[in-house]
């Protein structure tokens, strides 16, 4: 078999080279992943917190239902639901762009996993932390804001890192609703050029680079946020 890397300089029929197309696709992958990450973090932190509230059984239930609902349906099916079913059921959603729907799907899917980590992190704290907040006269919100969550998030940095990398990898599923991201590019360019191996190698490398970058970025945040003397016992995240 011979290599033909020049394939990336060929015109794709639309006035741009395959290389340019691939870079644009990489941009879409990163855009989907970053936007979904923000959604997942905000919603995941909220839902995870709800699940640990004392004396609010209905909020705890809401959090639990959220997690079970979004964790037990495959991501691909969830993307189809957001993309096809939601706009049909709620006509007001008809004009929402596909990009936003995919971001919501990926974001909510990941939020269930983040919520699970946040709950674990909060419950890993000694009860004394909560009592300390109460003894200072903090309200529940203040206790969470100033005492519990800052500690919990530091504890769960390792699993949050792997969930963030999972999110980046999972953004590839967006190909199914024709978001012009890397996997979509790989499938189309492979068909058009018949140089599948070269195309796939480049795309795989971009995914690996992106996942590595996420890993380093999260490690940097973890280091910056570290409290001297606090030893975090490594928890590992599963799944993919």
């Amino acid at each position, binding site marked *: 078999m011979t290599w033909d890397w020049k394939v990336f300089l060929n015109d794709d029929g639309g006035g741009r080279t395959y290389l340019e197309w691939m870079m644009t696709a990489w941009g879409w992958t990163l855009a989907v992943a970053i936007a979904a990450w923000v959604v997942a973090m905000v919603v995941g932190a909220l839902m995870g917190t709800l699940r640990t509230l004392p004396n609010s059984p209905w909020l705890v239930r809401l959090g639990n239902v959220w997690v079970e609902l979004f964790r037990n349906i495959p991501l691909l099916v969830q993307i189809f639901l957001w993309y096809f079913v939601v706009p049909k059921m709620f006509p007001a959603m008809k004009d929402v762009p596909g990009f936003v729907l995919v971001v919501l799907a990926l974001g909510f899917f990941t939020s269930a996993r983040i919520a699970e980590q946040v709950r674990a992190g909060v419950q890993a704290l000694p009860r004394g932390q909560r009592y300390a907040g109460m003894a200072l006269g903090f309200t529940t919100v203040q206790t969470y804001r100033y005492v519990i969550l800052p500690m919990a998030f530091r504890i769960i940095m390792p699993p949050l890192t792997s969930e963030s990398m999972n999110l980046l990898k999972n*953004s590839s599923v967006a190909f199914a609703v024709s978001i012009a991201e890397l996997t979509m590019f790989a499938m189309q360019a492979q068909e058009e050029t018949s140089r599948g191996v070269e195309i796939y190698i480049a795309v*795989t490398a971009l995914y690996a680079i992106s996942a590595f970058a996420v890993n380093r970025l999260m490690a940097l945040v973890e280091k910056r946020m570290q409290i001297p003397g606090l030893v975090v016992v490594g928890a590992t995240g599963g799944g*993919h």
Partner: protein
Amino acid sequence: MFGLDLTFLSWDILSKFVINGFLFSVQLTVVATLGGIVLGTLLALMRLSGNKLLALPATIYVNGMRSIPLVMVILWFFLLVPTIIGRPIGAELSATITFVAFEAAYFSEIVRAGIQSISRGQVNAGRALGMTYGQNMRLIILPQAFRNMVPVLLTQTIILFQDTSLVYAIGAYDLLKGFTTAGKIYGRPEESYLLAAVVYFVLCYSLSYLVKRLNNRIAIIR
């Protein structure tokens, strides 16, 4: 309701389109779990062997697989396997090979953690009894490690079952494809996506509930 009409569904449609897909999804899950655990255990033993020639390739394989999206792995195998063996293979067979190879990487991490969770004393006790490496692993370490790992292995299997829907990328006929095909033929695509979601949810939720109960029972025994 909400502009949807679920009445099109009948037993006829289910048996015609969905059952076959469901059976393939289950078969893929079972084969990939068993194959993945066997291969994954081998990979884990290679990494823990202390022999660089064995450990390095296993480490590269596991970390490589874990750093690329499953969809890309599915596409890679679908592209490469026919080139390597010199004849075209079906999407279903290609998906099966892919999932065994991919899941082996994830299962090997679980097995590795399981083996490392067994205390050194157990290893030394086996050695003191004059057991060989193989006997020690087979009779002392792996049985204990696997018992500890059962809940994590089952959880991974549920994730694996959900991930089988990604064979959509190469057009293999699985549970999801069964529903989408029925939806297309009867002009009810939205309803069929919704039904697929319900079926996946019921299956995965029940399974994870069972795992949770099993987990509690094992926790008491320990």
